[in-house]
C-alpha cells in the first residue's frame, strides 16, 4: 500500500515539476500517435466512405479484411514493420527502424483499419435516400461525400477517438519498431514498461497517470464536440 502511496506522491511531483524526461516522453507520444492518427484519417475516411457507399465485386471480402484489421495485434504489426524496415529488408535502405517514423508507420497500420471500418459503418447508417436527395439537389461527388461525412459527424468523431485510443495505448509495435531509445523513441507506454521493470514505480505511475489524463482529455474534448453536435 505504501508502495502505491509513495509512487503517487512521487508521480505528482514529477508532473508538477515538469520533469524534462517525462515531458519529452509525453510530447513524443502525442506527436507520434497524433500524426499516425491524422494519417489514418486522411487515408481511412475516403476509403471508408468509398467502401460504405459504393457497390463493387469483392466488397464483402474487403470489408472482412478491414474488420480483421480492426483487431490486429500490435506485436504482429510490430513484427511486420520490423521485417520491412530491417537493414536487409525491402525498405532497409531508408534506415527507419528504431526511429519515431517507424512508430508512426506501425501505429498508422494499426489505426487505419479502425478508422476505415468505423467510417464504413458510419456511411452505412445514413439513409441511402439522402444520397439521392443530395444528388438531386445538385451535389457534385465531392460535395456529396463531404455532406454525408458531415451528416455522419458523430460517428466520425467516434472513429477519431477509437483510432487515437488504439495507438496512444499500444505498446508492442512501438517497442519493437521504436526500440524504446531514451530521448529518441521512448514513448509513454514503452517507458512505463521499462520503469516498472526497473522497479521505479513512482516514474511508472507518473507516466501512467499522464497517459490516462491525455486519453481522458482528448476523449472528453471529442465527446463534448460530439454531444454538442448531436444536440443541434
Amino acid at each position, binding site marked *: 500500500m505504501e508502495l502505491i502511496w509513495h509512487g503517487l506522491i512521487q508521480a505528482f511531483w514529477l508532473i508538477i515539476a515538469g520533469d524534462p524526461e517525462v515531458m519529452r516522453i509525453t510530447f513524443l507520444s502525442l506527436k507520434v500517435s497524433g500524426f499516425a492518427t491524422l494519417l489514418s484519417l486522411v487515408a481511412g475516411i475516403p476509403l471508408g466512405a468509398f467502401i460504405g457507399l459504393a457497390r463493387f465485386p469483392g466488397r464483402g471480402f474487403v470489408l472482412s479484411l478491414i474488420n480483421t484489421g480492426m483487431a490486429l495485434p500490435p506485436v504482429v504489426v510490430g513484427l511486420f514493420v520490423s521485417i520491412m524496415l530491417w537493414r536487409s529488408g525491402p525498405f532497409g535502405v531508408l534506415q527507419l527502424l528504431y526511429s519515431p517514423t517507424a512508430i508512426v508507420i506501425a501505429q498508422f497500420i494499426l489505426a487505419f483499419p479502425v478508422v476505415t471500418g468505423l467510417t464504413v459503418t458510419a456511411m452505412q447508417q445514413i*439513409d441511402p*435516400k*439522402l444520397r*439521392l*436527395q*443530395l*444528388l*438531386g*439537389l*445538385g*451535389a*457534385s*461527388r465531392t*460535395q456529396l461525400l463531404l*455532406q454525408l461525412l*458531415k*451528416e455522419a459527424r458523430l460517428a466520425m468523431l467516434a472513429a477519431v477517438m477509437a483510432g487515437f485510443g488504439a495507438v496512444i495505448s499500444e505498446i508492442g509495435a512501438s517497442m519493437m519498431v521504436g526500440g524504446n531509445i531514451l530521448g529518441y523513441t521512448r514513448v509513454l507506454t514503452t517507458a512505463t514498461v521499462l520503469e516498472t521493470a526497473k522497479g521505479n514505480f513512482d516514474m511508472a505511475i507518473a507516466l501512467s497517470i499522464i497517459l490516462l489524463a491525455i486519453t481522458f482529455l482528448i476523449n472528453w474534448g471529442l465527446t463534448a464536440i460530439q454531444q454538442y453536435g448531436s444536440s*443541434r
Partner: protein
Amino acid sequence: MTASALDISNATVVYGGRTVLSVAELSLFAGEILAIVGPNGAGKSTLLRLLALLEKPVIGEVRFGSQPVRWEAASLLALRRRMGTVFQSPLLCNTTVYRNIALGLKFRGLPKPEIGQRVGRWAERFGIGHLLSQPAKSLSGGEAQRVSLARAFALSPEILLLDEPFSALDQPTREGLLGELEGVLRESKITAVFVTHERNEALHFGDRVAVVMGGRLAQVDSPERVFSTPVGEEVARFVGVENILRGIVLEQRDGIGVVSLDSGKIQVATEAQAGERVLVCLRPEEIVLARPDASFAAESMRNVLRGTVDQVTQIGAQLRVRMNTGVPLTALITKQSWQELSLAEGQPVQAAFKASAAHVIRRREN
C-alpha cells in the same frame, strides 16, 4: 405543340436482373404538370428517378431539352442543377432549417447574400420563416416537408420533380400543403412532375396524367380522359371505375352496340364489332336509381336493370349503394335523393344509365 423539357425513349431500368420499368415513350412538355399515378410498387418512383437523371437506364435514351443525356459525371451534374427534387420523406440534413434550404444553393456556389435572400423568400412562401434558426430535427412532419419544398423551389429549377411528397403526412396537413403547392406551381408556371398513388391528387394536379402499372406506362392522357376512358381494366379499377362489366358484343350499328352480359343485354356507345369481347366501365355517379315501379321518361336512358339493394354506405355527403342486378353494380347518390326514393337495403330497385355513359374497353383476345 409545346417544346419538350424532358423525353424518355425506349428506356428500361433493371434491378438485380428484374426489369422494374420499361418506358417506350414519354415526353414532359415545358410548363406542364405531369402527374404520375399508379399503385404501390408499379415503378412510379423509378420513373421519377429516371426523369431526375438519378437512375441510368440499361438501354434507352433520356433527352433534356431535346439533347440526349450523356451519362457522365460532369454533364449529369450540370443537368441536375437545372432541376429540383422533393422526395416522400423530407430527407433533411442534421443542421438548421436555414442551412437545409440553402444546401442546393451552396452546392451551386451562389454568393452568400443571394442565398440568404432566396432562403428567406421561400421560407416565407411556405410559412416556415420563423423556423430558420431551428434545428431540422425538431420539426414536425409537415414543417419538414415545407423545408424540403422550399429547398427545391429556392433553386429556381426549370423542372421540379416531386415523389409522393405528402403521402407520409396526416390528412389535414396533406390537404393544406397540396393547396399551397398547387398555388406556387401555378403561379411560377414551372414544369413539374408529381408522383402520387392517390388518384384524386393526380386528378387535382395534373395537366396530364401518366398511369404506371407493372413497370409500364399504361396510359398518358388528360386527367378527364384517364378517368372517363381508361384504356384497360387495371387502369379502370385504379382510377375508380367501380363497375366493370364483362360481355360480348352481339351487334353494333351507328356506334351503339348491344352487349350481352351474364344477366341480360345492355346498349352502349362503342365501335366494337359483333363477337368482340368487351369491358363496360360505368362510374358510380353515372348510374341513376329509381323505385321498382317507376318508369324512365328520358329516352336516352336506354339501359334499365332491375335488382335489389345489397348495402348502403355513407361517403361524405353521398351514399354508395351496392346492388345486385344479376351483376354487382355500385351507384353514388346524394342523401337527399336517397330519402326521396325511400328505399332500403334488401328492397327491389331499378338502376339506369345512358348508352353514352359507359366507357367500353375492347379486350384483346388471349
